């Protein structure tokens, strides 16, 4: 499954759902494409029974310039919050990962894709850096999905 985290009404935060939209029709029909607001218990219960899950989210914080793409593979013993870029959601992706780890509800394989966001205010347009990065982000997510599907 692929989960796009974010909301389309908060500028760069809409990157995750935008990638999901772009993936439709371009990945095998057996791959579930979902959107989430990032609420951690829902994320956890969405991915807990999945063999593999790919999550796409906007990232905030850190020193990376806007538009930078991140990819992190989360393992069962690896603290996600230290390895992954900070999600743009306070009680969001990192909480979902850690809670899932504590409660043994991580999927078999969890791959995080993020794009460093710049603007998170109300609005429906991406910052120029994120707009320029969306196609490449989508391509990288698709490559992971196709690779996982083939295996």
């Amino acid at each position: 499954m692929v989960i796009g985290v974010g909301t389309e009404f908060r500028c760069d935060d809409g990157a995750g759902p935008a990638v999901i939209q772009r993936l439709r029709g371009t990945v095998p029909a057996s791959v579930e494409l979902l959107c989430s607001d990032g609420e951690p218990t829902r994320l956890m219960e969405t991915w807990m029974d999945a063999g593999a899950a790919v999550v796409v989210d906007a990232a905030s914080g850190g020193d990376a310039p806007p538009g930078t793409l991140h990819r992190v593979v989360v393992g069962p013993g690896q603290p996600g919050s230290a390895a992954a870029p900070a999600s743009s959601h306070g009680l969001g992706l990192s909480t979902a990962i850690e809670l899932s780890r504590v409660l043994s509800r991580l999927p078999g394989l969890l791959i995080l894709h993020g794009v460093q966001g710049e603007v998170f205010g109300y609005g429906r347009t991406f910052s120029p850096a994120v707009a320029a990065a969306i196609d490449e982000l989508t391509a990288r997510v698709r490559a992971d999905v196709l690779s996982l599907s083939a295996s």
Partner: protein
Amino acid sequence: MTHRRERTLTTAGIARVEGEGSLYLRLSDGHLDEVRLNIYEPPRFFEAFLRGRSYTEPPDITARICGICPVAYQTSSALAIEAACGARVDGPLASLRRLLYCGEWIASHSLHIYLLHAPDFLGYPGGIELARDQRAVIERGLALRRAGNAIMEAIGGRAIHPVNFRIGGFYSVPAKEDLDRLAGQLQAALDDAVETVRWVAGFDFPDLTVDHELLALSQPGSYPIESGSLVSSGGRAFSAADFEEHVIEEQVPHSTALHARLAGSEGTYLTGPLARYTLNSRWLPPLAAAAAADAGLGDSCRNPFRSIIVRAVEVVCAVEEAIRLIEGYQRPPLPSVAVAPRAATGHGVSEAPRGVLYQRYDLDAEGIIVGARIIPPTSQNQAAIERDLRQFVQARLELPDEQLAADCEHAIRSYDPCISCATHFLDLQVERT
């Protein structure tokens, strides 16, 4: 100001999607000079976004304002538009809306109690650490939340941004057996909810009594959730249509949010669980009333920290109500009533988990929205929270900044503001001399 010895502390701030939280304190000579709280950005974007759209669209659009309480936004918007169009949704369709709303209360309150608020009382940085030490406790909270989500999925189609809700009712209504299937889960949830009240009632609560005027809905005969008229502890009683005559929003210099006050009063007012409970505790269903009594709540509650008990009692209430509504459910013959547009203004109000949520829509003859107003509970509570913080911080001036920040987060989280669903959500600046 340059002569002051300034010390700035920033908590582990996290960029928040729903808004940014900041608290500025200026202290001098052991006295608190100034408190400035900025915790919420009102949904002005959505008000503008709605203009020019069809009267059928607000339930879908406003549901996206908040992932935690979409049903509250859907319900208030539908009530407003149905009022404008002279339509009324009652009988089994209204009961179905109340049932859907019960699901949201259960899910939202359970998330707040277990993952956000309880860790503050138990000395944990957050829900993850609590889960690590007390897995069974967190599992109970998650099971409760699942029960709420199950109701939302059965009626709304899905728990996040329910898609089955529409002006006039629903796109489709569940068969009785679809709801009966929830019975077992809800009976277990009822036990969990009662146990939750016992659990949180045993916490240690800081002393704080607030004297704000309390504002909540009233539905005589039942605990207010999905509809009602407004009442206050100051004796006010008015309908949704008069909301903007009684609630005045004013810009304050330090905040992007408007501060709300009640007309004719310079004091602050509060909406949310404390207000709902204090003004309506006599209408709690039997098990919720018994749980409240066992928890020592009495008829009223004016300590914001004890709101966690009130929320737990409201979860019992919502589960109890859900079971009653499912037992009495008869599938409505039609999933919705016809709602024809007309040039008019309508007002709708309901009790979001965090408090009174008001919406107004101005329609033209074709049903195009020419004006919209959305006043969420966090926006209304901001002035009251700021005032309470003044009292709270004054008694803690000697604490180091880090402890002060943690205590202030704890205090603010007691009101369950929209910003609160971040483990550390507050940027705190302290200026000391």
